[in-house]
């Protein structure tokens, strides 16, 4: 739909090459783009404005790091500030104190309170707690039935309320019910209500008075627009929230509401809902959310995935080989295999940010099968050939091509890519040669030898 922020910033800074420092003037255009990206992601107008101002103050005068372009530097600052604003690290539930502890879930209609109550109970159950569910939504038809159904799916006791009961009476029965069932956490699902509905907001205050909850969590839809500020503000004012659960993050919403809510309430976002299934509840990662809001894709996920695959020892070993310039075709093959382990190229590309980038990569026409062919070629070599590619002459090439079911041209291509890769490594390890634009392009080519 729109270009990623990074590619936009890249454009803005194209004519700014050579500046060593970020000045007010040369970041103005960039910050305009940042502001638009935030607004497109549904961050509230005022929140976006304030945020950009903070970033500007922080950015002016900073030296551009050698390895970054000014655009990247601005994104780095924006991303850091955003992560910081959203709470830095993941926050967990506070369940300390004498059990049973009460968690109260509140929010607008349709934000996903009942489903979240079920998910949270499931999550707590998995973490050694014994939760019970209290349905205090007597207004929406069949809301109690819904919670009872969810409870039976995850084997969690649900207080058998009836829609004729008063929410206050249900609340009063919650603690005795928990004691009776030996539960240490009480999850109270309340009716969805408008933040401007004084009568129902007063009801929540009364429930709070009866239950004395340890945590009051606002359940908010990640797709919420500018109104998030009003909603969260009103709920916070009435109840003094302790945290937020952001739901429906499995869609393609950029989730700017997260920032608005955090800015207005100051409460940490504790969980995110990522699907309809009962295990689709995850701990909130501010850093991931910030790159999502900025439209930079979930780069972290891919980094983590890569880290799982590339075992440290191997990486160290490889680094040593680079240094000693002993990078052989065997190592090359190992890299290819690791790439395969990482998952299909396309799925990795999808995780990478930005349509713009995808377009460029598409031009390279990455072919999954080429990976297989490349590996086959290396497999058809003898050990000696793999260790020292220089001995591969025309006759050997013919044999390798036949053995791997490819052609001599493809063998040549692979060898060229391998040589490129080696040259690159030498340059990088040499330290002196700073990889400029040209070198970077070559690097990409070298690692995708097709």
């Amino acid at each position: 739909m729109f270009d990623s922020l990074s590619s936009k910033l890249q454009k803005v800074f194209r004519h700014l090459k050579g500046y060593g420092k970020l000045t007010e003037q040369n970041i103005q255009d960039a910050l305009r783009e940042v502001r638009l990206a935030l607004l497109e992601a549904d961050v509230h107008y005022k929140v976006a404005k304030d945020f950009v101002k903070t970033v500007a103050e922080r950015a002016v005068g900073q030296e551009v790091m050698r390895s970054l372009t000014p655009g990247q530097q601005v994104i780095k600052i924006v991303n850091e500030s955003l992560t910081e604003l959203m709470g830095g690290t993941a926050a967990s539930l506070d369940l300390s104190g004498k059990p049973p502890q009460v968690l109260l879930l509140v929010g607008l209609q349709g934000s996903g309170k009942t489903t979240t109550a079920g998910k949270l109970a499931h999550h707590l159950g998995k973490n050694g707690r014994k939760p019970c569910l209290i349905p205090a939504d007597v207004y929406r038809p069949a809301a109690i039935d819904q919670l009872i159904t969810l409870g039976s799916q995850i084997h969690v006791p649900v207080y058998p309320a009836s829609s004729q009961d008063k929410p206050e009476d249900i609340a009063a029965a919650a603690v005795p019910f928990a004691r009776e069932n030996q539960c240490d956490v009480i999850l109270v699902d309340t009716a969805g209500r408008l933040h401007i509905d004084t009568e129902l907001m007063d009801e929540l205050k009364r429930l709070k008075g009866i239950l004395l909850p340890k945590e009051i969590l606002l359940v908010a839809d990640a797709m919420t627009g500018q109104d998030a500020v009003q909603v969260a503000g009103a709920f916070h004012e009435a109840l003094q929230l302790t945290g937020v659960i952001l739901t429906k993050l499995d869609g393609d919403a950029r989730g700017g509401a997260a920032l608005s809510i955090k800015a207005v309430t100051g409460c940490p976002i504790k969980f995110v809902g990522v699907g309809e299934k009962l295990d689709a509840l995850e701990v909130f990662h501010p850093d991931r959310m910030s790159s999502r809001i900025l439209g930079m894709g979930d780069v972290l996920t891919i980094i983590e995935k890569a880290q799982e695959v590339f075992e440290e020892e191997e990486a160290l070993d490889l680094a040593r080989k680079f240094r000693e310039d002993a990078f052989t075709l065997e190592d090359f093959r190992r890299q290819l295999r690791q790439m395969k382990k990482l998952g299909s190229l396309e799925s990795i590309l999808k995780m990478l940010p930005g349509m713009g980038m995808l377009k460029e990569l598409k031009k390279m026409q990455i072919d999954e099968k080429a990976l297989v062919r490349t590996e086959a070629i290396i497999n058809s070599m003898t050990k000696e050939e793999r260790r020292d590619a220089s001995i591969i002459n025309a006759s050997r090439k013919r044999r390798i091509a036949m053995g791997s079911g490819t052609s001599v041209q493809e063998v040549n291509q692979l060898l060229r890519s391998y040589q490129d890769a080696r040259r690159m490594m030498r340059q990088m390890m040499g330290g002196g040669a700073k990889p400029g634009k040209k070198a970077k392009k070559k690097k990409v080519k070298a690692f995708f030898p097709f």
Partner: protein
Amino acid sequence: MLKWFRKKSQEPPSEETRTEVGEAQAVQAESDSSAEQTQEAQGGFFARLRDRLAKSRERLADQVDRVVLGKKHIDATLLDDLEEVLITADLGVQTTRILLDHVAERVKRRELQDPAKLREALRDEIQAILSVDAPPFDPSRAKPFVIMIIGVNGVGKTTTIGKLAYLIRRSGLSPMLVAGDTFRAAAVEQLERWADRIGVPIIRQQSGADPSAVVFDALDAALARQVDVVLIDTAGRMHTKVNLMEELKKVHRVIQRKMPEAPHEVLLVLDATTGQNAMSQARLFQEALGITGLILTKLDGTAKGGVIVPICHELKLPVRFIGIGEGMDDLRPFDAGEFARAVL
């Protein structure tokens, strides 16, 4: 190269961007769910509606008045302030820019000089976009008239069906409900309560049944019982979930196979509190099924639902109804002029 993504700050968030929260409007609360409302006088309904809309309009009007008042010329600051009004109404960056560029153009050509007229001009533009050329919503033009209600989770599909059935029944036609949401726990029961409350028949199967099968049987029943309007509820689904969208397409195909003319209306329900993502929802549902209209719910809160402006602009879909509460008479036809006045 990507190391900084992992960098986590040690210090606590120092400068929190605090935003003023608009004074919570005290719209008098109503226990909408009470069944007594059925008997409520017509006057009561309109009075309440007027009251609700007036309140949100007043607040907004103030905002714009503050912006416009005391200005002699239309200048950049004024346009900036208007940008804020439009963006906070969820119209989106692009649409806001288009609207303001138009106005700025007219100012340059000296067609528009009085700041007071500016609002009129913007309202007219918005109204023009929202007045999509489309055949009217007329459930009497076929029998049975099949309406499919679709949307993402939690926008108010089931409630809207209840309200729509009530509206149709009051217009003298006989509606029938079809519990096509067999996935969400107790969704069938929820629709059943609505059917009881309004006194209309409902076709249901047990939870977990194949929605296409439910719909297939329901259409048979509709033909046998000679009902006028069939209202099909569907499970909420994220527009990005390919499998669930395929399931929805299948339901659509089953309807078509049974009655080549049907469904006569495919209505996408959008939540007014949703921001720019509604655009993506509309696009993908449109792509999958071909929508005939929109229903905008939850306009009784503080959200303006301005995202329908870019949606109508791009997809040329008419807004059929708006939802303004949880009572069964809280669904009403959409009025572009009124909506434009509520935004600005």
